[in-house]
């Protein structure tokens, strides 16, 4: 019966054609050209590579020996942990709380979604002003409280914390909305049955809500981990060129730095290939850890 409907395949191809052409031109072609570029010598942006690198794998060997690559990988790993615990964790706690209150759920949803709507560049400038050493918002607040020495938020000790705080703060609302939609799909009868059997609120959360929201949490974890690999605009505005002595590079910002500032385009292409491979491997790992169960 199904085979009959798809007997005539021509209209299907017609419908899928425009989207496929668009993706082929703007996604697949640049992707494979980039992999090719990482093995070639490229003089400047916009000029395609003429000849291959002398040993064709030079860029990858350089990547292993480059100290900044290891710094950026370490920072990105810290960022992933912060994103998982901070963004998804806080969003989960907030969603569980909002799910259990009677009034104001819609108001909280709107308020928590605010930072995502604001562009990340504008947020970067805002946080620059907040963390400014001389009369920024936080230091002014400390002065009001009476502290004599001001904190250097962008110095070496606090730079990573200052960079990760806005990134974490911005996307909590995004995961909050995803999780709360997932929580709304849990049928009410389970909660009623549990309360008949005498379960307290905490037990209901632990035995019903969390297992049923497993799939949603898995999706959020994959998004958070791959997002940490790609985050660029907020850290770049606050710490351009890995500011305190190149110690705050992330994979996204380092790739941009190599391609646009140092103009070492083929090395940037090799970094991009590394980021993609890392992203695919990590999302597979996260998927197997938070394995999706069918209920």
């Amino acid at each position, binding site marked *: 019966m*199904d085979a*009959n*409907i*798809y*007997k*005539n395949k*021509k*209209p*299907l191809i017609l*419908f*899928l054609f*425009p*989207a*496929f052409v*668009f993706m082929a031109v703007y996604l697949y072609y640049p992707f494979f050209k980039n992999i090719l570029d990482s093995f070639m010598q490229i003089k400047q942006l916009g000029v395609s590579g003429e000849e291959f690198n002398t040993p064709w794998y030079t860029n990858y060997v350089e990547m292993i020996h480059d100290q900044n690559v290891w710094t950026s990988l370490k920072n990105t790993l810290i960022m992933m942990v912060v994103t998982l615990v901070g963004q998804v964790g*806080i969003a989960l706690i*907030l969603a569980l*709380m*909002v799910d*259990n*209150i*009677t009034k*104001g759920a819609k108001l*909280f949803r709107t*308020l*928590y979604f*605010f*930072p995502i709507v*604001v562009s990340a560049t504008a947020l970067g400038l*805002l946080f620059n002003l*907040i963390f400014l050493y*001389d*009369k920024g*918002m936080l230091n*002014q*607040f400390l002065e*009001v409280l009476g502290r004599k020495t001001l904190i250097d938020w962008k110095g070496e000790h606090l730079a990573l914390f200052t960079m990760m705080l806005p990134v974490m*703060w911005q996307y*909590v*609302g995004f995961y909050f909305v995803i999780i709360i939609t997932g929580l709304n799909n849990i049928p*009410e009868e389970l*909660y*009623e049955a549990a*309360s*008949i059997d005498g379960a307290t609120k905490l037990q209901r959360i632990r035995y019903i809500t969390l297992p049923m929201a497993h799939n949603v949490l898995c999706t959020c974890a994959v998004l958070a981990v791959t997002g940490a690999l790609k985050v660029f605009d907020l850290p770049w505005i606050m710490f351009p060129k890995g500011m305190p002595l190149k110690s705050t590079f992330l994979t996204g910002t380092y790739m941009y730095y190599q391609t646009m500032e140092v103009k070492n385009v083929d090395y940037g292409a090799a970094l991009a290939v590394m980021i993609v491979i890392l992203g695919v491997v990590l999302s597979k790992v996260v998927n197997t850890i938070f394995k999706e169960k069918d209920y």
Partner: protein
Amino acid sequence: MKQKEMTKSFQSRPARKKRWKPSVALVYLFLIFWAMTTVYPIIWVFQNSFKAKDKILSNSFSLPVGNLYTTANYRKAFQNLDIFSAYKNSVFISCVVCAGVVLLAGLAALPPLFRCIPWKLPGELSIPETGGCLCSL
């Protein structure tokens, strides 16, 4: 919400005014605290946009009343920096992106829906009818 009422009826509480349980108050407190951290920076920017530059650096928490109030910043944005044409560009980009995404994604999403039209095979639908299908999405 529903589950709270059902719990009450099952435990047959006497009908009286609902008392604030401390746990509920704590939950609301935490939620309001997070809402403040989300909304306050934007309020801060908004209230500072009415102050002159040096006043922001010296006194950023006060409301712009009386002496501090000035609209010079907004005047500068609209006249010197021409933020209006930036708005026009953004609106144009948004409209084009929206139309393009609906068109391409809508076309690509249609084939799985052909199963819902059992009375006519896909090959027999003429172009105006497929256009009608797209508009009804």
